[in-house]
C-alpha cells in the first residue's frame, strides 16, 4: 500500500490560516492503515485546528468527512453537493488522492495534510518499510522475491556492491543489504545458479524515467 506520514500541525496551520471554511477530507484506504489520514486522524486534526483558531480569535468552520477512496471518481462524487460550502479542502489522502480531488473540484484550493512516502508494508504496529518503487517491469522472479530497486540504496542489478559488509549496507549499519538478502534466499531456495546469470541492462522506460505513466486495459473498459 501507499505509506504516508502526518505533516506537522504547525505546517498545516500556516497553510490553512487564511481560509474561513475548511473541509478536512480523509481517505479510508492506505492512509487509514498507516494511521496518517483516516477518519481518526481527521477527527483529531479537526479538533486541534478548531481549538487553535478559536484561541487565536480566528474561528473557522472546520468540517470532517472521510471517503472510501479519493483516487476514484465514484467516491469523490459524494462531496459534489457540499464542496461549495468550503473555501478549501485539506486532504489527508496520499498525493494521488489530493490531486484527483483537485482535478475534480477545479475551483477549490486543495492542501495536502500528509507527506506521501513510498509503497511499503506494515512491518509492525507503528513501523512501515519500503518494498517497491513501481518500476513497471517486475524482476522479483529473478531476485528471490526481494526487490533490489527499492531495497538496495544504489539500485544495483548485479549486486552486492563493494559496500556490503556483514550483511549490512554501507549507507546505514542498521539497513540490510538487499543483495545479501537475495543471495541468502536464493541459497535457501536451492537456486543459487540463478545468481550466476548476469542481469541484462534494465529497461527504465517503464519506470518514472520514461515520464508519467499510464496503464490502459481495453479488455476491462466499457
Amino acid at each position: 500500500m501507499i505509506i504516508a506520514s502526518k505533516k506537522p500541525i504547525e505546517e498545516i496551520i500556516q497553510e490553512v490560516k487564511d481560509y474561513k471554511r475548511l473541509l478536512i477530507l480523509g481517505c479510508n484506504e492506505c492512509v487509514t492503515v498507516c494511521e496518517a489520514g483516516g477518519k481518526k486522524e481527521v477527527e483529531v486534526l479537526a479538533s486541534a485546528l478548531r481549538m487553535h483558531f478559536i484561541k487565536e480569535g480566528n474561528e473557522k468552520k472546520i468540517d470532517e468527512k472521510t471517503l472510501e477512496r479519493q483516487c476514484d471518481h465514484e467516491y469523490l462524487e459524494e462531496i459534489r453537493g457540499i464542496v461549495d460550502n468550503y473555501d478549501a479542502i485539506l486532504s489527508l489522502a496520499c498525493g494521488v488522492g489530493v490531486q484527483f480531488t483537485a482535478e475534480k473540484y477545479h475551483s477549490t484550493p486543495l492542501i495536502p495534510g500528509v507527506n506521501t512516502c513510498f509503497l511499503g508494508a506494515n512491518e509492525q504496529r507503528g513501523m512501515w518499510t519500503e518494498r517497491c518503487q513501481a518500476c513497471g517491469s517486475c524482476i522479483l522472479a529473478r531476485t528471490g522475491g526481494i526487490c533490489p530497486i527499492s531495497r538496495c540504496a544504489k539500485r544495483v542489478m548485479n549486486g552486492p556492491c563493494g559496500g556490503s559488509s556483514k550483511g549490512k549496507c554501507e549507507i546505514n549499519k542498521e539497513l540490510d543489504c538487499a543483495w545479501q538478502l537475495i543471495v541468502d534466499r536464493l541459497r535457501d531456495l536451492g537456486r543459487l545458479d540463478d545468481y550466476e546469470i548476469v542481469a541484462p541492462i534494465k529497461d527504465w522506460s517503464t519506470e518514472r524515467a520514461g515520464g508519467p505513466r499510464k496503464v490502459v486495459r481495453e479488455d476491462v473498459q466499457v
Partner: protein
Amino acid sequence: MRLKCPANFRIVRLPCTGKIDVIHILRAFEKGADGVYVVGCMEGDCHFKSGNFRARKRVEQAAKILDKIGVGGERVKMFNLSSGEGPLFAQYSIEMDKKIKELGPNPVKVALQAKKKAA
C-alpha cells in the same frame, strides 16, 4: 471511606483506560475542560495486559498536540493506582486541581466566552 476531593471534576468511566483515544481528550478541551487526567491501573496490572500503556501513549500524544496549538500539554496527565487505593485517588485529584488552578482556565474556553460577551 470518606475522602475529601475537589468538587470541580467530572468522572468519565471507561471499561479500561485502553479505551481512551486522543480524540476523547481533545473533545474534552473543545468542550471547555481546563484539564483532563486519566487514572489507570498500576503498570503491569492491566486486566487486558496493555490498556494502561496504550492510555499513557495517547495521553502523551494529546499533550503534544495541545502544546503545539497553544492550549498547553501540562493540562493532561496520566496517573496509575490500584483499585484499593482510594486515598491516592483523592490525592491525585487534589494534585491535578492545584496544578490546573495554577495554569488558569483553558484558553479556548476563555476565547469563546470573550466572543459571546462581545456579541
